[in-house]
């Protein structure tokens, strides 16, 4: 399996989140190496030049308890019919080439070395109107058969995404499970109008792409359960971190940045002869 060329530039550019304290995990716990250390805020290292790195640095991570909207559990599965591959092999490949399985026009700027607990990655997602949404994820857990991301403040939803593989009736199953609430009132509306459907399409296509890697034409199944119908109005203020709003403003400011950049270049060119 080869690594896509566009990911090679990402090598060693994403730093791991810095733990609050340098205390090692307790050696007696069997799961100690699988969990990220506790962090206060996210820290992103250098990212490739083409990446829009916004709305991640300095943000806190969120769980489903910290979101605003209804809580959903969305499960996407695909069966690798007849593929002679173990769950651990699938997860190893999924971790190693994670971004390459994403649908086109969406980018995952994560470590080339794979997915490890404590990693931080920048995401650039294509939204309606061709706006690039810049947000990120934090790897809170990873073992040989699964790994889990947490979202940062400002992400469209607050929650966890768990990627796993397991055996069922003699076949290996791939699964993406999202436990989430919309991060803020605007995201709640956006998810209802567009986001939930878009997310379904996104993860179904991702599963097809992973299955294809193992020679299987997958037909993903989707199960959506509303875990909690109540909205947490005390979390409505999360909107101040909204990556959607900030990314939209950033996109709207592009012409002005271009003009300002041109003026700086012109000023530099004018000064050059007299220097």
């Amino acid at each position, binding site marked *: 399996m080869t690594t896509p060329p566009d990911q090679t530039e990402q090598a060693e550019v994403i730093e791991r989140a810095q733990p609050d304290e340098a205390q090692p*995990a*307790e050696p*007696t*716990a*069997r*799961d*100690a190496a*699988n*969990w*990220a*250390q*506790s*962090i206060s805020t996210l820290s992103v290292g250098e990212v490739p030049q083409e990446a829009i790195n916004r709305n991640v640095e300095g943000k806190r*991570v*969120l*769980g*489903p*308890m*910290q979101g605003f909207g209804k*809580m959903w*559990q969305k499960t996407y599965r695909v069966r690798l019919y007849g593929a002679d591959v173990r769950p651990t092999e699938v997860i190893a490949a999924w971790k190693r080439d994670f971004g390459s399985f994403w649908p086109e026009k969406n980018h995952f700027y994560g470590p080339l070395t794979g997915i490890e607990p404590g990693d931080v990655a920048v995401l650039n997602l294509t939204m309606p109107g061709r706006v690039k949404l810049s947000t990120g994820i934090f790897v*809170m*857990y990873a*073992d040989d*058969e*699964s*790994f*889990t991301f*947490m979202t940062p403040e400002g992400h469209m939803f607050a929650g*966890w995404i*768990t990627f*796993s593989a*397991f*055996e069922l009736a003699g076949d290996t199953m791939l699964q993406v*499970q999202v*436990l989430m609430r919309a991060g803020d009132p605007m995201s709640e509306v956006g998810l209802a109008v567009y986001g939930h459907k878009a997310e379904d399409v996104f993860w179904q296509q991702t599963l097809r792409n992973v299955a294809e890697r193992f020679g299987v034409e997958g037909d993903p199944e989707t199960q959506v359960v509303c*875990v*909690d119908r*109540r909205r947490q109005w005390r979390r409505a203020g999360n909107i101040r971190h909204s990556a959607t709003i900030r990314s939209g403003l950033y996109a709207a400011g592009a012409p002005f940045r271009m003009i300002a950049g041109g003026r700086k270049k012109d000023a530099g060119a004018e000064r050059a002869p007299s220097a």
Partner: protein
Amino acid sequence: MTEATLNMEVRPAGGKASIVDIRGDITSGSEEALMDAYGRATADGVRVVVLNFSGLEYMNSGGIGLLVTLLVRANRQRERLLAFGLTDHYRQILELTRIDEAIGMYDSEEDALAAAGAS
């Protein structure tokens, strides 16, 4: 998916609370055992459930997801969820996942029961 090994015992604590002793592993395969224990703990109208994590040996992200589901159930039924017996490692995991903001964590059974008003 790895078969989870989990044993949960429920014992009453002064009529106002129940204690659920957790022994073994909590994974995504633990849902039935966890929800069944919670159901037994609240069967007599008890409003406070205290989870004893001192026998917890392993927990993955699927297990943490179950704790969130349990919290939602407790909130919906207007019940409280408290915890004690967490090692530093599991306490750190609850902090990392920010579940500590929703579950009261205590050092000992006595402290948890005092907070529940059951001691």
